[in-house]
């Protein structure tokens, strides 16, 4: 019984939906990309030129000054013009047109670099645009090895990088990498050509640690690890370059090491804090890596020997010797003399002795010795 009623309801609803859709099909949001600095005229849909309309930008009304009849004129576009534009006709606010305007630039020639930090596994290429376009760009990379086209696997992140695997080693044929960048306003491209071995540059050594050497006031032991991105240090060994200087000086000292991941500095200034960095390079080909994260260390210094008696008198003289030798006493501590009442001068001398020692060790601790 209720079925015909339901059907009627359904038909009415369908008709309403169709009518609504028909009405708004002319008001699908247009997406526009326009060049920075250019002029653009937006029509109010199919409305006649002399129709009374109201334009809104991001929900705010626009003054009539920008209008040419029912059309909106925007001159000298800048980034602030980007937004949602809508045109309403008459007092009924009938939406006739809407658009999303994106103001941007066509891409300039991109900057492309390729590097192999994982030789001989492969290399990666990364790129960037010298100036922003303000609109979405798509990048396409092609790699030619002689006449063979290779695939460049895009990284999920960062997204301006892709990887190529080496199929053969020791190739005489160059690689040519072409990058094309495209957006709604134009496109541009760049290409670089290189030999396999010229782009080899390892990552910096990892885990650079510098430690003082016990009982050696002029030594520092430095250890590091080959970068984890270098896949085969056995077959493709790295050599290292170490530089170090005390923090207070500007001049670096350098050591080149053809093997091993450890080195002992033997000419450090005693008591000075040092900054140490290491770089890596394939033994025969390519270029040096960037400098590693700096390690800091101070060479071992002798522990100051503290006396157990407490200091009472204020600090008196200062000396520059590291080890303190108490001055010879003129008074001999003769047990026979104690009873004479001569004990107190001796006691005073002892107090003075303690004070000077404390002063000396304070100087040593601040590292003023050179």
């Amino acid at each position, binding site marked *: 019984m209720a079925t015909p009623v339901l059907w009627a309801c359904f038909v009415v609803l369908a008709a309403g939906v169709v009518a609504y859709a028909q009405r708004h099909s002319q008001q699908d949001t247009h997406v526009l990309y326009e060049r920075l600095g250019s002029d653009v005229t937006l029509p109010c849909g199919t409305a006649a030129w002399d129709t009374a309309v109201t334009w809104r930008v991001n929900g705010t009304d626009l003054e009539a000054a920008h209008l040419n009849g029912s059309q909106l004129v925007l001159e000298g576009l800048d980034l602030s013009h980007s937004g949602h534009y809508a045109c309403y006709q008459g007092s009924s606010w009938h939406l006739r047109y809407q658009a999303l305007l994106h103001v941007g630039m066509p891409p300039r020639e991109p900057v492309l670099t390729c590097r192999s930090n994982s030789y001989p596994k492969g290399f990666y290429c990364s790129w960037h645009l010298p100036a922003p376009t303000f609109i979405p760009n798509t990048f396409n990379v092609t790699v030619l090895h002689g006449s063979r086209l290779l695939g460049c696997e895009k990284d999920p992140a960062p997204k301006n990088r892709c990887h190529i695997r080496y199929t053969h080693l*020791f190739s*005489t044929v*160059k690689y040519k990498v072409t990058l094309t960048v495209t957006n709604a306003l134009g496109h541009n491209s760049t290409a670089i050509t290189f030999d396999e071995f010229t782009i080899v540059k390892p990552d910096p050594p990892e885990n650079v640690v510098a430690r003082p050497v016990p009982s050696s006031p002029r030594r520092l032991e430095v250890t590091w690890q080959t970068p984890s991105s270098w896949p085969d240090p056995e077959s493709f060994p790295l050599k290292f*370059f170490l530089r170090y200087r005390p923090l207070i000086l500007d001049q670096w000292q*350098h050591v080149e090491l*053809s*093997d091993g991941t450890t080195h002992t500095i033997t000419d450090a200034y005693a008591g000075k804090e040092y900054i140490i960095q290491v770089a890596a390079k394939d033994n*025969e*080909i390519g270029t040096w890596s960037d400098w590693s994260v700096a390690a800091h260390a101070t060479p071992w210094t002798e522990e100051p020997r503290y006396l157990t008696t407490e200091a009472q008198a204020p600090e008196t003289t200062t000396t520059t010797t590291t080890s303190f030798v108490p001055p010879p006493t003129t008074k001999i501590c003769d047990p026979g003399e104690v009873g004479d009442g001569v004990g107190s001068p001796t006691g005073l001398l002892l107090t003075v002795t303690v004070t000077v020692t404390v002063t000396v060790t304070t100087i040593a601790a601040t590292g003023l010795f050179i």
Partner: protein
Amino acid sequence: MLACLCTVLWHLPAVPALNRTGDPGPGPSIQKTYDLTRYLEHQLRSLAGTYLNYLGPPFNEPDFNPPRLSAEALPSATVDFNVWRSLNDHLRLAQNYQAYSHLLCYLRGLDRHAATAELRRSLAHFCTSLQGLLGSIAGVMAALGYPLPPQGAEPSWAPRPPHSDFLQKMDDFWLLKELQTWLWRSAKDFNRLKKKMQPSAAAVTLRLEAAASDL
């Protein structure tokens, strides 16, 4: 005549350069061979620069990337990574030896039509060094008890028919390119052999006190 010359050269490196008593093993001679490849690489850099300038553009342009045409004759250093890695010592040495034998042969042909006296001198000097490298490799093979590659084998190269001037220059270009690549590969080959023979390598320490920290 050139074929005759090449056959003569083919037999020359057969005589091992070493005749030592109290042989400390192949280690030092591998090191010597490695050092020679580095030295030759350095020599080739200046030689190639001069020769390519003599050939003129486009050969001396850095981006020059021509397709490989009649290059089957030249011994190619290109190899699949896993194949290269798993080469046994004998094969590794033999491949190097054969490659340089061929390359030396071609190089002497290059000498023939090099224009300036200075260029001819540089080429002759390089050929002599390359000859030394061959002798060094032969010495290593002898020390390890490996036989030298068969002498009877005819080099795959045959007297070239008269080429156009441009094609001749292309051949010269690829010869130098192949030499460069082989020297770079040899360094890796001998480094690998060195590691196998000498497990504890001495660290070479060079102390440089530089005012600037640039590399």
